[in-house]
């Protein structure tokens, strides 16, 4: 991890002994699947202070070790599973995992988050991150039990979906519940579906940019960690617990976060519909005759046999296991859909039967692809068949909007690359380009190859701009949270491109900071100042709001530099035709984002301090962020 080293593992020897700051295990676990070698690498307090963990740490390793010729499917690509300094501590929702790799959809960097218990288990086993390189000769899984780390044969797990994989490993090791955390790929990952995901702990998915395809290419079926028995210290436990309490209090009482506290993301469906942001039938409409009163959170939960299924140390009423009440899959246990599930496995493909959405959503997690991309692919096929751009003969089945069982068959075809599924497995952009013609004009994606979250971004321009300009294969700034804290307006006109771009650029870094801590973006939806306080108490270093934003922006800059080195630049920062189209109806009907797009890019670049022409973070920006080595790398000519 020396700043100038590139594409080779750092030496693990001759480091000066420095006391380990609180919150850290102090070691990275390194695995070379080609050779079967497993080793640990200490990292220094200086590195911890500057890169924190999670995506901060992962971005740096990726930049240092994955050169431009190491494509997503190259054995030397790194699959980094990192957690952060708050993981395993009593701050709510801190079992966090960040997966960082070079992804299969954009060919650039990926940073995608999941929760559950993996991050906490990793820390209690003595590691801050796992860095996986190489490619196993046969399907394998990684077993971690404190100091015992083994690459084991996974022949018996081949073809199993992610829930089956976890159950099989639990039985094999005689450890159930949270005593064994398992993150695995499903059939989709094994078959190198470009939007394959990594799922763990029954319902938590690191889903973006084909990280599951990378894992599949490495022939790594799963990583399983026994809870771990090592001790984790905080520098100032009293301060940490006070900060954790304050955050919890905030989440419970702040009007906006209290919604998340009670209902998770379920409110999204009705709220976003009112704003024209709920994607319906592949962006062909923004209105429905369905009574949205039936889609309020309490209704989405009502009558399900519910079981709390929280992440490490979390008090939110967010994650649930539910039992399907009726219909063909009655009795099946599923993970309650998040908003993204209701949207990707529901509204986007015209499915509005709650039981069906709930079932399909978990089936998507189990076959293990990104539910958003699945929605864009499936909805695209549905629309194309509806309009005759694709035929039943081509596709292999007749798929209509609203057909959950058909969507499931499509999912199986995709995850096993059967028939037309083989083309769809390439993701919506590549599939659309391959099919071409009128069909291609219906597909929703960015020119980079990524695709939006489960929203209709034509009514939410900040997220579209973010999705298109980001360097991680999905949104990287995300929607604003307490933006007044960093001097940004609390309320803007969402269809004023300039205001949107200023806000989107202005909050850049916050999310990277959050994603470096080892926690959840929902429990971290408090003020940055509070997170910085928790981090300071944990580590013993003093972080303030400015430090947090600076560290986040450093990570953003490193990821952008990585992508530029891979040849991904500003020329691809555009939505596809449909993605950037004018809504035909609904609340955002009169607003066309492309009318203002160039101006939005100009303002965004100016706001984040990047060069509009080359896409590079400017020299001044990099120096201000404390990245002189990156300035040298980017501007050496």
């Amino acid at each position: 991890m020396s700043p100038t080293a590139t594409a080779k593992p750092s030496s693990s020897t001759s480091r000066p002994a420095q006391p380990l700051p609180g919150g850290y295990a102090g070691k990275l676990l390194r695995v070379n699947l080609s050779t079967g070698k497993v080793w640990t690498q200490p990292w220094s307090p200086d590195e911890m202070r500057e890169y924190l963990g999670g995506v901060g740490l992962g971005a740096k390793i990726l930049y240092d070790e994955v050169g431009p010729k190491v494509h997503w499917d190259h054995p030397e690509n790194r699959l980094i599973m990192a957690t952060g300094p708050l993981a395993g501590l009593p701050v709510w929702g801190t079992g966090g995992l960040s997966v960082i790799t070079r992804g299969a959809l954009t060919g650039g960097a990926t940073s995608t988050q999941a929760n559950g218990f993996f991050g906490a288990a990793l820390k209690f086993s003595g590691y801050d991150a796992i860095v996986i390189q190489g490619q196993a000769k046969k399907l394998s899984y990684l077993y971690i039990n404190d100091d015992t780390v083994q690459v084991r044969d996974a022949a018996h797990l081949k073809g199993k979906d992610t829930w089956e994989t976890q159950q099989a490993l639990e039985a094999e090791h005689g450890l159930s519940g949270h005593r064994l955390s398992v993150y695995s790929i499903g059939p989709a990952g094994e078959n190198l579906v470009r939007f394959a995901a990594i799922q763990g702990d029954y319902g938590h998915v690191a889903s973006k940019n084909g990280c599951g395809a990378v894992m599949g290419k490495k022939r790594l079926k799963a990583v399983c960690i026994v809870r771990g028995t090592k001790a984790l210290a905080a520098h100032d436990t009293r301060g940490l617990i006070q900060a954790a309490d304050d955050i919890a209090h905030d989440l419970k009482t702040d009007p906006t976060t209290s919604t998340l506290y009670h209902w998770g993301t379920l409110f999204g469906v009705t709220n976003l519909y009112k704003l024209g942001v709920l994607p319906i039938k592949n962006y062909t409409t923004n209105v429905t005759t369905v009574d949205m009163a039936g889609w309020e959170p309490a209704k989405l939960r009502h009558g399900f046999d519910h079981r709390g299924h929280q992440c490490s140390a979390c008090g939110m009423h967010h994650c649930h296991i539910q039992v399907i009440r009726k219909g063909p899959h009655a009795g099946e246990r599923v993970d309650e859909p998040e908003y993204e599930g209701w949207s990707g496995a529901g509204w986007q493909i015209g499915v509005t039967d709650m039981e069906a959405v709930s079932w399909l959503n978990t089936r998507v997690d189990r076959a293990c692809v990104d539910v958003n991309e699945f929605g864009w692919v499936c909805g695209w096929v549905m629309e194309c068949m509806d309009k005759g751009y694709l035929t039943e003969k081509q596709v292999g089945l007749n798929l209509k909007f609203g057909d959950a069982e058909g969507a499931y068959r499509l999912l199986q075809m995709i995850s096993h690359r059967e028939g037309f599924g083989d083309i769809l497995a390439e993701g919506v952009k590549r599939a659309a380009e391959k099919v071409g013609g009128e069909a291609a004009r219906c597909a929703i994606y960015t020119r980079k190859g990524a695709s939006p979250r489960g929203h209709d971004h034509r009514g939410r321009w900040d997220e579209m701009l973010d999705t298109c300009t980001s360097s991680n294969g999905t949104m990287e700034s995300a929607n604003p949270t307490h933006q007044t804290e960093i001097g940004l307006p609390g309320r803007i006109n969402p269809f004023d491109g300039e205001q949107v771009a200023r806000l989107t650029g202005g909050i850049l870094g916050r999310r990277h900071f959050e994603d470096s801590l080892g926690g959840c973006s929902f429990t971290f939806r408090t003020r940055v100042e509070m997170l910085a306080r928790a981090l300071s108490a944990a580590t013993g270093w003093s972080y303030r709001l400015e430090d947090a934003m600076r560290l986040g922006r450093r990570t953003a800059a490193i990821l952008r530099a990585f992508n530029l080195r891979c040849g991904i630049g500003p020329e691809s920062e555009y939505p596809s035709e449909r993605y950037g189209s004018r809504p035909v109806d609904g609340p955002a009907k009169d607003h066309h984002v492309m009318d203002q797009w160039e101006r939005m890019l100009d303002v965004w670049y100016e706001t984040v301090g990047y060069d509009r022409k080359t896409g590079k973070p400017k020299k001044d920006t990099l120096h201000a962020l404390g990245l002189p080595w990156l300035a040298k790398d980017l501007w050496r000519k």
Partner: protein
Amino acid sequence: MTATIEVTTWVTRCVGGDGSGSRLFEEPVAPDDTLRTLLRRWSARFPELEAALWNPARTDLGEHIEVVVNDAVLGVTHQLDSPLQGGERVTLLGQFMGGAMVGALSITCPPFWPSKI
């Protein structure tokens, strides 16, 4: 002449609801009413709502209730001082993500387990 005020999501708690569903209010619109005067007059009946909807000085809206007029977020077709014709549908939508810290000043709980050590 009336406008319909629709209160949804957690905001319903400020008007006697349970945080879900929606509540509808028909509010008379006077000839020189603007959105501001209408909302100020109406919200004064619900102290909790008033505190949540407005900033502390009551000069501007607070930051965690989205105001939508006829399906458009405030700022698109209507400003706070836009005149009303009657027949408008004004939706108060609780942000479910984002928003600013206003009402939730942190109350520091007394330290508990560290006292053991």
